[in-house]
């Protein structure tokens, strides 16, 4: 695991690569390797090899998985860092997607706006460059993150989850039914907005088969999100999020302004959701409201939990694996299985059975995820003494006088023994 805890670096003094540079180098190396594989190696494989990759690991499934990675990293900020359970994260994915739909298509045929757009200058509609739309989508979603976050500020745990769930349902519904808002067609209803302009780099336009280049762009966006996530985590804001996750009241007593800190978690998380939305719209070439349903929120959450809540690399792994299983692994396994045994089972329709099963097993045997956040691992496996002892302390509270005299006696009895014990450094009389 590439961890960024500074103490790690202290413990590995002989490392030649500076700690700060480790993940960017590793990430770039992995990305370039995949790029080279799909650009040079696979096209030159024999027919068998090509078929294998086309069936089991097509580049389009990797691209889609990267979109999931971007979005899951955003959810990780809200859930993993700040500890705010969000069951409606699909809302931001949808908002980002529709930003791309509105600003990169001929949908608003009433106007003709071209800003470095990916379409011929004569066609109507709003055609803004993909890169600008990324920024606009991010900003738009940050705003919505705050709007959606604000009513949840005073809520905790279950209630918070329910309100976010509500927003996750409302926003896709608005898009589905938004084809006649006082006579104005905002979203084109259930037909969605297609096609979305291709991504433009300079004067070239990426067509539907330029998957390798789209891959590079998505990898770049994911890298930016990883960078922002890690930088924020190690900064002042990250510490404030962490403190809120650990103990909201205590955090507030340390001077952490709860409202602002929570809203910034929603906003930053939503930025990643928006980036994923814009990327996804260009990946599939359009936006359709029925793609943004509740199951997306759940899948995102499963990615975060499965990978390792709070750990960027764990979340990335979780997202890559689950997205691949969903889009390629399971259908391909199904068709191979059916071919082999002459059965006719619809494997992809069992994906949630599979995910649910995996989650149950994870919760039973590895609650902290595949690649856990380093601080979680320890505490989950060595049961926290806080819970036990604060419970004990509460139980002692009702009878203070009794407790007082009893403990005075033990003090006299154990006094010398404990005084000698300083070297062992444990909790003295508190040992269980």
């Amino acid at each position, binding site marked *: 695991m590439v961890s960024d805890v500074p103490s790690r670096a202290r413990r590995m003094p002989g490392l030649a690569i500076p700690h700060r540079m480790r993940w960017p180098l590793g990430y770039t190396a992995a990305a370039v390797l995949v790029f080279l594989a799909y650009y040079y190696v696979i096209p030159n494989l024999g027919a068998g090899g090509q078929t294998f990759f086309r069936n089991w690991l097509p580049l389009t499934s990797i691209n889609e998985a990267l979109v999931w990675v971007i979005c899951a990293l955003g959810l990780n900020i809200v859930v993993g860092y700040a500890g705010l359970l969000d069951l409606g994260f699909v809302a931001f994915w949808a908002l980002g997607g529709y930003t791309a739909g509105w600003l990169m298509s001929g949908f608003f045929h009433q106007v003709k706006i071209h800003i470095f757009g990916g379409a011929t200058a004569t066609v109507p509609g709003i055609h803004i460059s993909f890169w600008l739309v990324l920024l606009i989508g991010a900003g738009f979603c940050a705003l919505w993150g705050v709007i959606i976050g604000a009513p949840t500020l005073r809520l905790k745990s279950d209630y918070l989850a329910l309100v976010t769930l509500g927003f996750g349902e409302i926003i896709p519904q608005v898009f589905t039914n938004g084809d006649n808002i006082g006579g104005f067609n905002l979203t084109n209803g259930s037909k969605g907005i297609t096609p979305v302009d291709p991504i433009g780099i300079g004067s070239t336009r990426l067509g539907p088969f330029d998957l390798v280049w789209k891959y590079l762009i998505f990898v770049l966006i994911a890298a930016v999100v990883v960078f922002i996530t890690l930088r924020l985590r190690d900064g002042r804001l990250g510490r404030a999020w962490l403190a809120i996750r650990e103990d909201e009241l205590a955090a507030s007593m*340390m001077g952490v302004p709860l409202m602002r800190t929570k809203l910034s978690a929603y906003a930053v998380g939503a930025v990643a959701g928006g980036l994923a939305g814009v990327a996804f719209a260009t990946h599939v070439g359009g936006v359709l409201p029925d793609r943004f349903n509740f199951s997306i929120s759940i899948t995102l959450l499963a990615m975060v939990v499965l990978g390792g809540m709070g750990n960027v690399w764990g979340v990335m792994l979780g997202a890559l694996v689950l997205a691949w299983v969903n889009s390629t692994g399971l259908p391909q396994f199904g068709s191979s299985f059916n071919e082999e045994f002459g059965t006719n089972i619809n494997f992809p329709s069992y994906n949630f059975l599979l995910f649910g099963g995996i989650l149950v097993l994870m919760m039973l045997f590895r609650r902290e995820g595949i690649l856990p956040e380093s601080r979680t691992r320890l505490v989950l496996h060595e049961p926290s003494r806080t819970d036990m002892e604060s419970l004990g302390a509460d139980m002692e509270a009702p009878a203070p006088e009794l407790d007082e005299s009893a403990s005075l006696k033990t003090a006299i009895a154990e006094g010398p023994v404990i005084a000698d014990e300083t070297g062992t450094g444990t909790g003295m009389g508190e040992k269980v």
Partner: protein
Amino acid sequence: MSGAGGVIETREPMLELDEIHVYYGNIAAVKGLSLTVYPGEIVTLIGSNGAGKSTTLRAISGLLPVRRGTMTFLGRQLNGVPDHEVVRRGIAHSPEGRRIFPRMTVDENLDMGAFLRKDKEAIAADREMILELFPRLRERLDQKAGTMSGGEQQMLAVGRAMMARPQLLLLDEPSMGLAPVLVDVIFETIVRIREQGTTVLLVEQNALAALDVADRAYVLESGSLKLHGPADELAEDPEIVKAYLGG
């Protein structure tokens, strides 16, 4: 330790509560409590369970609203100041039940205590001072706070509050659930904290130990002030001895 009361009271008060009323919903937990803390003092609030001691501290640090009455800290009104602003004003609160951040290391917990401060050098100096007060914490700097014993967590909670470099430190039941030897350590530390210039308002059920270190004491009974005075006098008051000191 005590007995300096007469001299101190001629000074400007640091904290002044004037007839405050604090409610949990419709239930009055503190009814018209008045209390004064002067700079450099250790003042203790004693009383049985449910007397309103912790409630008073929570009201001061902005965790609970004060329905009537006024609170003044260093000449400025404290009513309605949100909890994260109260720290900025110079009041740190080491809460009941310790409430350390379990998945953060001891070092990170201390760091959180100084969340609002930007003076890096002074923070480092205060950290050093706290680690001298609690040598046990220095041994455990890289340990996750949640895996420490209750006594160590209590030390951390007090140390973390001190990291805010407060002028007034509110301590809520620092001895609760601790082994007697650790209780002594905590109370000795409270005296040393005062020696370093921090005023302390201490809530304790362990009235004996609290009266021993405090200059003055307020005795609360079901949300109201029963009596107050120099700690050494109260420690000999027959009624107090009977009610709170198990005499």
